[in-house]
Each structure stands twice: as C-alpha cells, then as structure tokens.
C-alpha cells in the first residue's frame, strides 16, 4: 500500500500536528481530556519534515495557554491548529512556560516532593527548570510527566 494514512477531519476543536513520534499518549496525559471529547490519534505516521510524527485531533476542545505551553515542553515543534467548521481558524504558538506546577515529577529521588504528598513546582532558569524545593536544575530530557 503506497498511499498515506487518511485521518478523519474534525468539525470544531484542536489539531496537534508534528508531535514527536510516540509522544501522543504522554501529551494526552497532560491535557486530561475526558469522555466528552471525541479524540483521534495517529501515531508514527509519515512526515516530510520529521520522518515520522504523531497527530492528535480533539473535538470540541480549545487548549488553555497553560496546556499549550506544557505541550511545548515535550513537543517544541508542534503545530497547534484551532478548527472551526472543518477549517483552520487560527494557530497557537508554544513557548517554554516560566513556571510549572503539579505537572512534572522531580528527577531528584532525594527531593522532599518524592517523599511527601505535595504539588511540585519548577521555575524556568534559561533553558532549564529549577525545582522550587530541592533547588536542582534540570533539562527537559530529565523529566517524565507525573
């Protein structure tokens, strides 16, 4: 079969394109979408830009700025399209958020946030994030989503 994979359009909602291949399920974790929103996921599909990519289409959901920034952490080259009446109505741009609360687990096993039940907090310092509690600095590759 030589034809590309055909992914159904959505009427109103958000399309996340050019996600890193294999990242779609982690990205969905960040978005906390519930059963009200029909979702289409395509994984490991061909991409002229990046070889392979993932795509997520979410019906009837617009992303908050916080969600947009958080996605940008793990998918810096993502294209976020706002869809209205099956047409691209606008685009959202991502940037590294200045602060991240409750999203990431501190990679430092000796950090108190890995012992006590409490909300983690990271503050951006250049291209890295500093744990508000243990004060260590981490690059994005050091993290996993909580």
């Amino acid at each position, binding site marked *: 079969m030589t034809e590309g994979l055909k992914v159904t359009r959505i009427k109103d909602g958000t399309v996340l394109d050019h996600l890193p291949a294999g990242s779609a399920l982690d990205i969905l974790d960040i978005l906390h979408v519930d059963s009200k929103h029909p979702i289409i996921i395509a994984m490991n599909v061909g991409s002229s830009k990046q070889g392979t990519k993932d795509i997520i289409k979410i019906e009837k959901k617009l992303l908050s700025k916080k969600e947009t920034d958080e996605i940008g952490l793990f998918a810096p080259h993502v294209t976020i399209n706002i869809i209205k009446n099956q047409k691209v109505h606008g685009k959202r741009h991502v940037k590294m958020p200045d602060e991240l609360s409750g999203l990431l687990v501190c990679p430092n096993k*000796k950090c108190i946030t890995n012992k006590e039940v409490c909300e983690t907090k990271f503050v951006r310092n250049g291209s890295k994030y500093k744990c508000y*509690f243990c004060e260590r600095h981490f690059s994005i590759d050091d993290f996993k989503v909580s």
Partner: protein
Amino acid sequence: MGIKSKDIISAVDLTREDVEEILSQAEVMLGHLERKKRLNKLQGKILATLFFEPSTRTRLSFESAMTRLGGSVIGFSGTEGTSVQKGETLTDTVKNIEKYCDCIVMRNPYEGSARLVSQAVDVPVINGGDGSNQHPTQALLDLLTIKVEKGLKKLKVALCGDLKYGRTVHSLIYLLPMFGIDVSLVSPKALSMPGWIMEDIEGKYGISPEIYESMDDVISWVDVLYVTRIQKERFPDPNEYERVAGSYSVDNRLLKKAKHDMMILHPLPRVNEIKPEVDDTPYARYFKQSFYGVSLRMALLDLLMGTGGSD
C-alpha cells in the same frame, strides 16, 4: 527587622543587604557572648529544634544561642519516640509543633524539606541542613568568621574536599562572591561542585571559579582554606577512597608553603582531613569558627523573633 524573608531556607534567597544586616547583628551579639552576658531579648519565646538527623554543633549552638537570649527550647534529635516513626508526614508533624513554639529550626535528610515546612507553617523556619542541598546558617557563620578574622575584602578562598554532596559549600559558594571574594574549588573529579550550581553562580555573578584537584596547587596563595570532610560511603571502591582521602589532608608539611596569615576553616566534624598537629598552629580557626556560630545564631533568632535592636 530588615531581612526580606521570615525564614532562612537557602543562601540563594539572601541578598547582600540581608547578609550585611545579619553579620552586623552577629557582631553585636559576639560582644555580649565574649562578656558572657545573658540577655532577656527572647524571654517567653520558645524555639523548637527538630533534628531528624544527628547533629552536634548546629543543634547545640542554636540551643545555646536561644538560652543566651533568655528564651526556651523544645525539640528532638533523631526520630525515635516521635510520631514520625508511626508514619506521620513531615507537614502534619510541623503543623502540630508550630502551635508549641515561636520558631522552628529543622534538619532533615530530604532536599527541599525546609522549604516545604516554611510553606506549611506561619512561624519562622530556619534550615539546619536539608540533605546535600543547603546549610545557610553554617555559611553565614563561615562568613562571619572571615569578616571578624580578616575583614570582607578581596580575599582568595579555596573550598576543598567533597564539593558534590557537601551542603555547607553549596551555601557558602553563593555568599562569598557577594563581597568580591575570589572562590576556587579543590576536589577529586568524582566529588566536584555540581554543574547546575556552577551555571547558577555564573549566571548570578558572572564568574567561573577556578577548579583544581590538589591542595598543593592553591596552598601558596590562598587567604582562606575551607576544608570539608570526604566521606567513605561516597566511594564504591574503598581503595579509591584511601587514595583520595590521603591527598586531601592538611598537615604541617603542607602548611610550610602557606602564606603566613592564611587561615583554615572547617564546618566540623573532621575525621582525617586536618591532622591534629595543625590545631596548635596560628592557621587553625575552626574551633573559633564554632564559637562564632553561637553569636550568628543569636543574631538570626533575634532578627526573626525579637526586635533585632542593638541591646
């Protein structure tokens, strides 16, 4: 009180103005301490010392400082017999204890624990050491020692030993450049200063401390040799520990090459890194440093709980 925060959690939080105010108040307290004068500035106040890990100097000097100021002390050292052993969370423990006291000093093995506690309670919190992260009151007393003994001027200070896990050096490295003091680092490669601290220092002060692997490289020109303990358990290979620990030991042979007015500081306890023969030389100031710790902690307690006035 002028210091910005109600808590002393990390040297990273302190401004030069904060540090100057603390040191100035500590020098006033030092005068009282040298005359063995007991003050009543904190009469009726209670300090809780919560040491989840062993401590000799930090805990006892805080208790001594509080007693000298006329206040009282409650607390524990080790978790035996406390509700922590029954599984109580740190947050629940301190939310109870704050009802019994006016200030908390805490040491805990988890990094960031003091910051978490400061968010959970309304009383001032002083970090007495949180894992390998910070020990801000030790760094302040180190700076007080340098100020009293030499003055805060363009000095050359070498931080030596375990710079990777040593919380005292993780605090001190943030305070020295505030006063234009030149910092050099001496450690085995395996115990070098963490990269994120080096990057942070460069971002904050625009400096990159010089790195050395041997005390011989710095002994002839440093004004202050700050020695820390290299712990055996940090080395997977005991032979490697023996080799490294031996080369980070200060003795009279090494000191023959030192400047005549150089001084040696150590947060203590020491094991083999400073030979007892050094104790009687004019270079040794580590026991005096311990004494200065009481006045520094008197100043902090007064600034956080009392009026912070001069008498």
